[in-house]
């Protein structure tokens, strides 16, 4: 017999299972996001970043240097609306893909539109009833979907300004700005919470799995539903 170490079969099995199933336990892990979910999420992220990097140099000369990633401001002006079309389409796919997981319960709505946010951020919230996605994540989902719509409507006016009256153009510039600003602030926190603030989360969107311990800490009700254990 050779001395080659036996690979941890449980880890590979989880990735295989994660190709088409989720919310199942495999060894010490639980599959959280199947392949389709992950691909959709990263497609949204990619188109989002192309829009940000091509749009911000147009927004302010302070970010003019971002335009050089694409070959100059003229190139950004051409890429930006088309990347916006791609972003809108993939965001629509994302919306319908996750809609059924995002039903907000009245208790969640009350908590997360109130003091619940600060309690959560101070790590003092009561997570015992948190399912697969907490109230904050669900609100974020609807916020970004609405945001994508706002950017689309205002973006189309900005793409063909001469086809719209003056007042519609002015309002669109303002709507596009406000929506994008809120969107970027939200994404900064989305990335922060998904990486540094909550270790073990990033893997859920890459490998597709989380540890059982992670699930018990962050989403106890989901953990109970998946494993049948407390």
């Amino acid at each position, binding site marked *: 017999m050779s001395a080659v170490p036996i690979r941890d079969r449980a880890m590979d099995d989880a990735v295989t299972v994660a190709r088409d199933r989720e919310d199942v336990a495999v060894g*010490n892990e639980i599959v959280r996001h199947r392949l389709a979910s992950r691909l959709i999420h990263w497609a949204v992220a990619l188109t989002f970043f192309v829009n940000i990097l091509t749009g911000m140099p147009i927004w302010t000369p302070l970010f003019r240097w971002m335009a050089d990633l694409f070959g100059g401001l003229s190139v950004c002006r051409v890429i930006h609306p088309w990347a916006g079309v791609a972003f809108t389409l993939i965001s629509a796919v994302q919306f319908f893909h996750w809609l059924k997981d995002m039903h907000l319960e009245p208790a969640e709505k009350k908590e997360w539109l109130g003091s619940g946010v600060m309690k959560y951020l101070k790590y003092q919230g009561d997570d015992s009833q948190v399912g697969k996605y907490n109230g904050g994540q669900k609100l974020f989902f609807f916020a970004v979907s609405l945001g994508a719509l706002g950017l689309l409507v205002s973006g189309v006016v900005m793409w063909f*300004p001469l086809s719209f009256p003056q007042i519609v153009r002015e309002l669109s510039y303002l709507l596009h700005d406000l929506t994008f600003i809120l969107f970027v602030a939200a994404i900064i*926190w989305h990335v922060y919470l998904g990486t540094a603030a909550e270790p073990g989360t990033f893997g859920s969107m890459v490998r597709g799995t989380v540890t059982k311990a992670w699930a018990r800490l962050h989403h106890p009700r989901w953990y109970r539903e998946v494993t049948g254990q407390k």
Partner: protein
Amino acid sequence: MSAQSLEIRRSSASVWGSSSGMRSVPTVAKYIDTSTCIGCKACEVACQEWNDLPPLSTQQVGTYQTMPTLDAGFWNLIRFDEREVEGGLMWLMRKDQCMHCAEPGCLEACPAPGAIVQYANGIVDVNQDNCIGCGYCETGCPFDVPRFSAKTRKMAKCTLCVDRVSVGLEPACIKACPTGCLHFGSKEDMVGLGSLRVDQLKKGGFTTAALYDPQGVGGTGVVTVLAYADHPEWYGLSRDPHVPLGVKFWKSIVRPLGLFAIAGAFIAAVGHYFNFGAKQVQGSADSDTNLPQA
């Protein structure tokens, strides 16, 4: 774009703002007297010729106007309005082109650094190399002047013959006018001419005559004598042109606040991590330390 010897007073999307303004250069202006314009359109032809603009087909829409509106290849248009007034029928003809505003809305709206510049003498010019063809200037302009080339999608408009003016010549349109209703010189002198003409008109019975030099945009580099100044809309002019509020709000308020908000979100995240750290998973799945605190 030419005449590098002229200092640039303001530039679009400029982080650093105005130039030094060390050399004092008088603001120039065109003077247009609509009361003596005969609509001969020599000025239209002169502009096309001097700027090597392509010949465009006249569009006959039942008026004496050559074209229904300005074009990226047609920067100077005699607008024609037939108006019944007390005393009979008036033909109101106004030379329409960029007004070279002291506070140019196009420049304020433009997001491309150096695409629209205002020279020290007040001339507002477009640098085609820097223009990205986004169309924001069209929304910023209260006179509906910016037009876009179908081929390059870049903006083109009257340059106030900056290439002629900077070597001491008058603009081509001014030179071509046969009736002497167009003049060129310092803004001060042109406003003076305007005062004289308005007084003459008033004495002649045009009681509402005035010089159109709208202060809503800080005054313009084109001053126009109107016989019926109480009806600027008859001449295709707006009563109180100004840089649109939406543009001002967007550039001066929403944008800086937005930058603060984005920076703030980032700083808040860093601060949160310093203060609260991470929500750590401890031990194994069977450990009691992961149960919610009672």
